[in-house]
């Protein structure tokens, strides 16, 4: 038995799951401190289905808390970026091309230092320890508490990043360190950006991790706690303390995987209509299709594995307006104030939910308060919503072949049964909890992404060792060994290089060990 929780911007949803069965579900309002919302959700689950806290094997949480912290620029630590690479890379120092506001919020402390590697592991220039001690003095004086260390080709060799950290922490003992070689892919700027964002979130991650642990302990649950990552896999809480940035896109990922689970489909589009936005994504082999190009996070370019999701400002709380040019729905939403501001709750704002209730698609609040709405307006709004969603589905599709669509999320009542270009529209049971269920059924993964020297006669051997390393990483992250499969192997010979140097990426995923998971050590 395990619990999946999704902490969204508006609602905190929780489900109690046993095998493939959903035993109980509960929707509560997200709270500013996150943990109160989770305690409320757990109490709600208990009320719906009495369960023994000790019988819970694992708790999986998907949260938008970290990405929202970056978007809103709150709770972020003063952060320094230390890059090893001089004389190379000088043209584009850390924080280049960042939005000014975010850079200011975290201090934008940027240091270019000697060090870094060539593609083949030669050193670009030796590490200058005095230079780094100077950086340490400076960041201590500026009150910087978290540092992101990046180095050219650190995916070939992470030694210089680690050595630089030793020098910095010898001078500033409590400094939190994030390493680029642990965080991103090849591509220095994107990897460094992700590392800086991660560093800025480290203090918040500590607070959240402690808070989550406390709220579960208070409920008598001592099962291990996991957080959802961008790619639908899980990380344990200790990992989350160090790599909070890996949670960024877990919300849409979870709803998509949850939609796949509830519908039993592996190849489909999933539409998640929430309170404020609608996300449209595609599933392939049961996993969200990844975005192919660089992913922008709050105006910062990164190269994370992220699901390819189209998001539009359309949801149950979207504000409906009649204007000269026609009807508009969203992109602004009353959000968590739906229960005060919408017409069905006695408010004075016409929202998409009011339209749904007036059309008889949903029973929320007092239907009597919207019975006099102009029927033409109601129909026009529903047509508008339908058209918007059909457009998004069409943009995501890759072939004209019939495409089944799974509809999830609390706002999905707005979508009519017939949508243009959709062969089959499925509204699975428990669809309003798809995101929490997606968290509950997550898997674990392991990835290798490095430059290897490939002797033409030993190519298979090298690729096999890369695959094995990915499998080992997945198992080390908690996957059941017999369930781990390789989902991606990619080999990119580096153009013009001697010695057959190749970048090899291998990725493995597997089911999380649930039954005999060790109890959480830190309770």
């Amino acid at each position, binding site marked *: 038995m395990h619990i999946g929780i999704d902490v969204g911007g508006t609602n905190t949803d929780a489900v109690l799951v046993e095998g493939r069965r959903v035993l109980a579900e509960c929707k509560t309002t997200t709270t500013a401190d996150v943990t109160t919302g989770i305690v409320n959700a757990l109490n709600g689950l208990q009320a719906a289905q009495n369960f023994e806290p000790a019988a819970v094997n694992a708790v999986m949480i998907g949260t938008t808390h970290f990405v929202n912290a970056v978007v809103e620029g709150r709770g972020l630590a003063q952060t320094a970026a230390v890059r090893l*690479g001089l*004389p*190379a*890379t*000088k*043209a*584009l120092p850390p924080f*280049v*091309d960042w939005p000014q506001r975010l850079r200011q919020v975290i201090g934008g402390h940027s240091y270019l230092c000697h060090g*870094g590697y*060539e*593609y083949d592991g*030669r050193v*670009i*220039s030796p590490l200058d320890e005095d230079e780094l001690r100077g950086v340490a003095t400076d960041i201590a004086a500026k009150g910087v508490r978290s540092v992101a260390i990046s180095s*050219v*080709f650190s995916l070939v060799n992470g030694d210089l990043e680690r050595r630089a950290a030793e020098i910095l922490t010898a001078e500033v003992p409590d400094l939190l360190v994030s390493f680029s070689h642990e965080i991103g892919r*090849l*591509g*220095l*700027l994107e990897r460094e950006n992700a590392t800086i964002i991660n560093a800025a979130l480290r203090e918040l991650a500590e607070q959240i991790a402690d808070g989550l642990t406390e709220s579960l302990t208070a409920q008598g649950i001592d099962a291990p706690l996991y957080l959802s990552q961008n790619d639908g896999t899980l990380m344990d809480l200790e990992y989350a303390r160090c790599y909070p940035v890996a949670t960024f896109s877990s919300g849409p990922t979870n709803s998509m995987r949850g939609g796949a689970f509830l519908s039993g489909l592996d190849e489909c589009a999933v539409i998640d209509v929430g309170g404020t936005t609608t996300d449209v994504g595609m599933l*392939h082999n049961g996993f969200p*299709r*990844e975005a*192919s*190009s*660089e992913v922008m996070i709050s105006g910062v*370019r990164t190269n994370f594995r992220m699901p390819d999701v189209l998001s539009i400002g359309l949801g149950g709380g979207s504000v409906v307006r009649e204007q000269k040019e026609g009807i508009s729905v969203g992109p602004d939403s009353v959000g968590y104030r739906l229960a005060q501001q919408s017409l069905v709750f006695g408010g004075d704002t016409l929202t998409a939910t009011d339209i749904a209730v007036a059309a008889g698609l949903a029973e929320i609040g007092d239907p009597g308060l919207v019975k006099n709405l102009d029927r033409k307006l109601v129909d026009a709004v529903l047509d508008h919503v339908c058209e918007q969603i059909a*457009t998004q589905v069409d*943009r995501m599709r*890759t*072939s*004209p072949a019939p495409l089944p669509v799974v509809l999830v999320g609390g706002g999905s009542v707005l979508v009519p049964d017939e949508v243009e270009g959709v062969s089959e529209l499925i509204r699975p049971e428990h669809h309003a909890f798809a995101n929490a269920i997606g968290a509950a059924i997550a898997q674990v993964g392991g990835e290798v992404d490095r430059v290897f020297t*490939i002797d*033409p006669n030993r*190519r298979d051997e090298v690729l096999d060792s890369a695959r094995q390393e990915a499998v080992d990483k997945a198992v080390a992250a908690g996957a059941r060994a017999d369930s781990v499969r390789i989902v*991606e192997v*990619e*080999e*990119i*010979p*580096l*153009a*013009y*290089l*001697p*010695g*057959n140097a*190749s*970048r090899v990426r291998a990725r493995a995923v597997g089911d999380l060990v649930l039954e005999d998971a060790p109890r959480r050590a830190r309770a």
Partner: protein
Amino acid sequence: MREIGADELRHIARGAAILGTGGGGDPYIGRLVAEQAVLEYGPVLVAELHEVPDDALVAGIGMIGAPTVMIEKLPAGEEAVTAFLTLQREIGRPITHVLPIEVGGMNSLAPFPVAASLGLPVLDADCMGRAFPMVQMVVCTLDGVLARPLAVADEKGNSIVLDVHDNHWAERLARSATIGMGCTALMSSFPMSGKQARDITIPGTLTLAAKLGRLVERVRQQHVDPCQAIASFLGGEVLFTGKVVDVMRANDPGFAKGEARLEGDGASCRLEFQNEHLVASRDGEVVASVPDLICVLDAEGEPVPAERLRYGQRVAVLGAPCHPRWRTPEGLALVGPSAFGYSHAYSPLGGQ
């Protein structure tokens, strides 16, 4: 002459990456480096070929090496200036104009730091009309303009001057030097007079790239299919739309060589590349080939470089006619299918 400021660089980078047919360097890094130069020194003057005096001294600038290394080992910023000044010193006369050697996301903008910091105009032209993987694959070779002398400079301040026998030797020797420098370097070469530049180089390619980049942004806002819009802009056609189902990378020490297989619309497509996309086949039949342009774009109209092709991507493959110079017998001998070891005959796109 007109000024190019920071805003236009964005459009040039995107448009040039499309015209770069999978190669030509990372458009993001190219744009950022050029932007920094323009922000520091002010806008760059771009000259049309007809504005260049006969006795001007023109030199080409471009990146040489592995784009996959450049996205990691970012430039120091002075490489192009060092290569340029090294070349100028060797020639012993002031160079008056610079031009991109090829069109590419990074390479179209490679002359900008030189132009901005030294106050020289950039020619609205290049030597390929697209990108090709090797130094000798330029219109200069057809007209007897040599890569002599040729200067290569790296981020550490190393530079080397080569006096080469011909442009094929320029490729071989400059490549060796670049590998020693850590696989990314900037080169400056193909010195020529203003008259030669006017007679030889391919005109208007910076402006073309900027127009193309603007077009992509505009059609996106209008929710028009960007791939169709790009195809009609280039006088080409969308050859295939589908998903990348396999990327096989050959173990070649010199280049990012390999092939990708795509599926969609009940057909399959094979793309062969050597840094740039070389040949596209549909169900076993060649539908586009060097020297014509083969561009791979994602659904948003964003160009996908050959080294970033990977499983699961949804892409459109576009074919577009190359510059007419490449369709002549001499042009085809230098950059046609046989120059890359293919036996198929070249069949021009657009039925010419």
